[in-house]
């Protein structure tokens, strides 16, 4: 029995080694480099050898382990189950703790510029995730072009702020409305398409918007991007060390020393508030008839029709509301960066946001937070390794789907209970 197992595993790992050699041999082992304008091949056999050995040995141990597991089934995955059970049950406590933590976060001793930047970036993704969660998680519409609305929000914010000099709090709702309108415009013709067709059409729309931004030079300055987007001010008080003559600034008004961190902390709270509004809105609207209809549509569109629910309008609201929050997040992005270009709105951004939503668990608000921390954290950890970090990111997407296809938080809470009313 034991000998048989070893023999089988050895055979299998040999096969794995051969496949690995075929996979990595040419692409990794024969690196093409330009020498004097001519491509030559530079062999890297040692790396290939290491990878192949790693794959084969890894496969061998996985085999031994899984075969053993089959012998003592039952106790095997109890640890994984315990974790998922804990996550499913304690979702709301985790949420409250997380909100409390995020409020005091800027005053933590370790919260320097680096950590604050990461926190702001994560919070932006959390907000985008929550916005897209309405579209994908609740309404079940796989939107692969969400970044388009992010871009529309950012560009409309930037254009209004630059050309009309309007303040953040005026431009923000306008940008959101613009993005929402775009959502309706794009959604109107395509929302009756089936799941993956919808996915590919939204992807195409996302790319079309980007190409438009790249080529409509008069309006968007094309690849050069828009510069000089006004920074947000604290109710009219700018964050500047040397303000213009006669203008009161944030630090003079409150009698503080000037510190560039003040602006960063303000931006952090700004995105925190925007994100929490998104969250509160989603939690609330999920319990309204339209939210219930979104989820019902995700479950069974035909049944919805038989009950008189208008699928097109219902989907359109989900699309528009999701787009609007994308637009809000885009405005924030524009004002934070003070510079935007089409480069920030590529397909990979859409893919990251979709991954955040799906890996978090469809429709789970807390799940979005957990998967953002995990995925963006992963990208951040591998920051210095350029393309390796995206390999890790993509790999994580595959692994989480394979081992937990319903996402990190899979359990859904009903939007209304009999206990409450009856």
């Amino acid at each position, binding site marked *: 029995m034991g000998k048989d197992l070893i023999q089988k595993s050895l055979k299998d790992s040999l096969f794995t080694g051969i496949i690995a050699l075929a*996979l990595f041999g040419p*692409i990794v082992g024969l690196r093409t480099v330009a020498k004097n304008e001519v491509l030559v091949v530079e062999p890297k056999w040692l790396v290939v050898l290491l990878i192949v050995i790693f794959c084969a040995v890894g496969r061998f141990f996985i085999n031994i382990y899984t075969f053993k597991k089959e012998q003592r089934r039952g106790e095997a995955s109890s640890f994984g189950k315990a974790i998922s059970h804990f996550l499913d049950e304690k979702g709301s406590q985790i949420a409250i703790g997380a909100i409390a933590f995020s409020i005091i976060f800027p005053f933590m001793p370790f919260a320097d510029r680096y950590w604050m930047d990461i926190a702001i970036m994560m919070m932006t993704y959390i907000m985008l995730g929550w916005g897209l969660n309405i579209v*994908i998680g609740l309404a079940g519409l796989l939107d692969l072009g969400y970044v388009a609305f992010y871009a529309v929000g950012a560009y409309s914010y930037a254009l209004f702020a630059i050309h009309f000099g309007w303040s953040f709090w005026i431009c923000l709702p306008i940008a959101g409305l613009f993005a929402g309108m775009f959502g309706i415009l794009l959604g109107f013709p395509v929302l009756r398409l089936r799941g993956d067709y919808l996915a590919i059409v939204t992807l195409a729309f996302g790319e079309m918007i980007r190409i438009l931004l790249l080529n409509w030079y008069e309006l968007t300055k094309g690849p050069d991007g828009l510069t000089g987007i006004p920074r947000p001010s604290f109710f009219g008080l700018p964050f500047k060390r040397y303000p213009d003559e006669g203008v009161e600034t944030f630090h003079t008004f409150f009698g503080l020393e000037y510190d560039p961190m003040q602006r960063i902390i303000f931006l952090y709270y700004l995105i925190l508030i925007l994100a929490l509004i998104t969250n509160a809105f989603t939690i609330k609207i999920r319990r309204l008839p339209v939210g219930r209809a979104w989820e019902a549509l995700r479950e069974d569109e035909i049944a919805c029709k038989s009950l008189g629910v208008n699928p097109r309008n219902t989907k359109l609201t989900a699309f528009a509301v999701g787009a609007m929050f994308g637009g809000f997040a885009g405005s924030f992005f524009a004002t934070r960066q003070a510079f935007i270009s089409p480069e920030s709105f590529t397909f990979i951004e859409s893919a990251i946001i979709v991954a955040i939503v799906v890996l978090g668990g469809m429709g789970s608000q807390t799940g979005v937070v957990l998967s953002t921390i995990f995925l963006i954290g992963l990208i951040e950890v591998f920051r210095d390794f350029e*393309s390796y970090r995206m390999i890790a990111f*993509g790999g994580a997407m595959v692994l989480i789907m394979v081992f937990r296809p319903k996402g990190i938080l899979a359990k859904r809470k009903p939007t209304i209970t009999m206990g409450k009313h009856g």
Partner: protein
Amino acid sequence: MEYFLQQLINGLTLGSVYGLIAIGYTMVYGIIGMINFAHGDIFMVGAFVALIAFILFALTSIALPIILILVLLIAMVFTACYGWTVEKLAYKPLRKSFRLAPLISALGMSIVLQNYVQAAQGARIKTLQPVIQGGFNFFKESDFVVTLSYLQIFIVLVTIVLMAVFTLLITRTALGRAQRACEQDRTMTALMGINVDRTISMTFIIGSSLASVAGVMFVMYYGVIDFYIGFLAGIKAFTAAVLGGIGSIPGAMLGGLLIGLIETFWSGYISIEYKDIAAFTTLVIVLIFFPTGFLGKPDIEKV
């Protein structure tokens, strides 16, 4: 007129490339009902394998026709391994899962492949010296000389041969029969004693090797590739598959030719900056007004 003819020739060549990629989409969609998001990147891997092979063979003194055949074979074999692996890692474990899961894992696979090739081969564009040069020139006395290069003839010929071979494979062999059976009802097919896993694997292998042939042609035709070419080519080929009617192999080829023509005519007559918009617009229009495509089966909603 001469200009038109030139665009037509270029469009048909480009269309052959798209058509070959589209077959992979259509076959996988037919058998597991899902868009293989990583397929465009498989094509890109094929182009890279071809590039490497061409560079290596350029150092030898093997005759050109033999090099071409060898490169095609090498690209097909190695790229097929990628297709097989993608299926095993990202699709097989999720076959019974809810419908978004495999889409996400395939998306993850696509990101992995792109960045893996970027890491292994570098982010800069790669240029290949022309492999086949020369061609026929027509209308030499007019202002615009129409060129039909040998390379274009080669591309179209290879495409036609492959199409014929694979059509035979699908319609005449046991494997093709098994594939068509799996499309209809996988459980029933398994009960008939057909190895469904292997059939699905074979579908990915065939689709990937066709995509790799498209990759070989792409690298020869344009002479420039980078790790990102799979994304756009993938979307265009998918459009082709839908246009022809998803699930139909002749449809994929037809759709590929149409997309190739639309793209070349658009860039030839309207705007080269917005040439990708042409493909995307076609995709959107086709999906909205014409979702069954030319040769697809009508999709009656079962209630």
